[in-house]
């Protein structure tokens, strides 16, 4: 099976560079696309070719389907890697790629459409036998409908946008008194953000952990998992620290969750690289939340414990190659931790704090990996996500990995006028007693912020 000749990378920042590196290792040529705000980006220089696709606003550049398709055609690319965010889970874009003879590196459009509808995804996974949090069978039809469900489920409940996902478009409701207002607000927000005001209701777990399973499925019905990641260190559903494997879980429960993940994905015809997200309660029961069909920001921790280059494998299955790994070939070793270094000010509610990087030297040395698009003299753009660097470390044990993460973060030299990063906050997380014990839940960050 032939790999691709030339891949257009329809993304920016660290993930664009990460994909370009994988392509180069596999002898695949690359096309970078960039907005005028990213004219000095590393990936623009790194790629074999580069095309300017529009002005800074994403909808006119990185989400500009016409510009990207035209760029692929003019450079004679045969596939498009969408990275994460932007167009990575857009079924329409995937379909247009196909119509233009381009391989979209992701799941088939109809599968993405089903999974993107969180209510339908719930239904499909229930049919596949995955455990779900009690809640609405389908999208709730009215305020009364929502009230009936909430009463049946018991408070607190969470109202989620059907078109949401990735932590966006959800509201926790603690009592019946708040319900009607929360319903109205969530619907309005969903309509504004997603153009789809359907919502559904689920039981809300207060002390849950957010655990996800990395899956990889080929186009021939084969599917494997690559173990778990714990992503409970979140602030308003935005992840700050992730680790693999999820700590302090019963191995049998983990095995069951991973089997569920693969079964669920295969049941809906999923192909490519994906993540099945679960909530895990205090009794270690797991509940399906959603499936993502993109490479995740936090994929390096899985790579470090499995030794598997996920982007390589993603390209292989996208090209039609059957899985190169059997389930028994995937052996997790040690512990990996990723720290997200964002240009945000934790002291001021994590507001973006971009600016010119006058000093920028990432950490290095044994078992440390840094994915970043930063360099000395780089100006962090206010137009995009504030993720500047991912510092990932590996060690044989969790305690050693956390020590190594602290060492690495202490080495990171970033300075510039106006530039503030999440590093000090991440250090607080790493030294938190509850976190050290591996017994943390999604409430951790809120507690640390309050301190």
């Amino acid at each position, binding site marked *: 099976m032939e790999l691709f000749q030339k891949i257009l990378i329809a993304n920016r920042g660290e993930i664009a560079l990460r994909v370009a590196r994988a392509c180069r290792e596999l002898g695949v040529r690359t096309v970078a696309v960039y907005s005028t705000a990213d*004219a000095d980006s590393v990936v623009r220089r790194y790629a074999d070719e580069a*095309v300017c696709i529009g002005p800074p606003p994403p909808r006119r550049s990185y989400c500009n389907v*016409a510009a990207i398709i035209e*760029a692929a055609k003019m450079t004679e690319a045969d596939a498009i890697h969408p990275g994460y965010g932007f167009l990575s889970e857009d079924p329409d874009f995937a379909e247009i790629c196909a119509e233009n003879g381009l391989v979209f590196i992701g799941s088939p459009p109809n599968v993405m459409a089903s999974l993107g509808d969180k209510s339908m995804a719930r239904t499909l996974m229930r049919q596949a036998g995955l455990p779900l949090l009690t809640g609405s069978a389908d999208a709730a039809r009215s305020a009364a409908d929502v009230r009936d469900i909430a009463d049946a489920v018991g408070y607190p409940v969470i109202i989620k946008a059907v078109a949401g996902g990735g932590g966006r478009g959800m509201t926790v409701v603690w009592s019946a008194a708040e319900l009607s207002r929360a319903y109205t607000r969530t619907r309005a927000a969903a309509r504004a953000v997603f153009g789809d005001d359907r919502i559904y209701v689920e039981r809300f777990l207060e002390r849950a952990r957010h655990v996800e399973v990395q899956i990889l499925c080929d186009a021939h019905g084969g599917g494997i998992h690559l173990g778990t990641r714990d992503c409970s260190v979140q602030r308003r559903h935005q992840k700050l620290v992730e680790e693999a494997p999820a700590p302090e879980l019963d191995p049998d429960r983990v095995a069951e969750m991973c089997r569920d993940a693969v079964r669920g994905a295969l049941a809906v015809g999923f192909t490519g690289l994906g993540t099945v997200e679960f909530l895990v309660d205090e009794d270690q029961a797991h509940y399906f939340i959603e499936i993502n069909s993109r490479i995740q920001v936090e994929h390096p921790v899985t790579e470090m414990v499995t030794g598997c280059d996920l982007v390589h494998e993603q390209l292989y299955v996208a090209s039609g190659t059957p899985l190169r790994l059997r389930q028994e070939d995937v052996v997790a070793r040690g512990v990996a931790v990723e720290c997200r270094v964002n240009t945000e000010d934790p002291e001021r509610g994590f507001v973006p704090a971009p600016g010119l990087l*006058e000093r920028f030297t990432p950490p290095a040395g044994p078992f440390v990996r840094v994915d970043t698009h930063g360099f000395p003299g780089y*100006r962090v753009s206010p137009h995009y996500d504030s993720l500047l660097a991912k510092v990932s470390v590996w060690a044989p044990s969790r305690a050693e990995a956390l020590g190594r993460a602290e060492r690495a973060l202490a080495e990171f030299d970033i300075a510039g006028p106006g530039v503030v990063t999440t590093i000090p906050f991440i250090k607080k997380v790493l030294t938190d007693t509850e976190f050290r014990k591996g017994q943390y839940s999604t409430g951790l960050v809120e507690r640390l912020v309050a301190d």
Partner: protein
Amino acid sequence: MRQGSGTDQRQHVLGCLHEHARRLADELPGRLGRIRVCSGDVIIEVEWAPIALAAAVPAQLEPAAALVSALEPAGAIDSRAIGSQDADSGNTVVVSAPLVGTFYHAPEPGAEPYVAVGKVIEAGATIGIIEAMKLLNPVTADTGGTVARICVENGEAVEFSQVLVEITPHH
């Protein structure tokens, strides 16, 4: 695609100079009259406003605002944006590609090109067509004048903000 690495570097330096100027202005006490930052052979000059002459004021001010916009990389890049702008090269303005696609000189194969070098056009005139996703998008000039140069071949692919045509405006 078109910006050479020399330009990249220069912009990078400019960004730094800008920062230096700004920070000096921030950090230095008193009422400044002049800051000069130079990279050619690395010069910083700071001049304070002559106090006694406060009334006569700032004839000599290389105003901060001008410096900022000249040194601002974002500004430099944005100047490649859609439509016509003053080009560096004196008195021509450029029409750049407002979208990615294939540039055509004429409405259809064999037809008369919209413009030719030497032709006089008015503001708002169509200078070519960009085909993207099978849609034909006319490209118009914001400024009238004489067509000085056609920078892209017929049927050539263009990226966003690529210069298509140069026009010498009439004054």
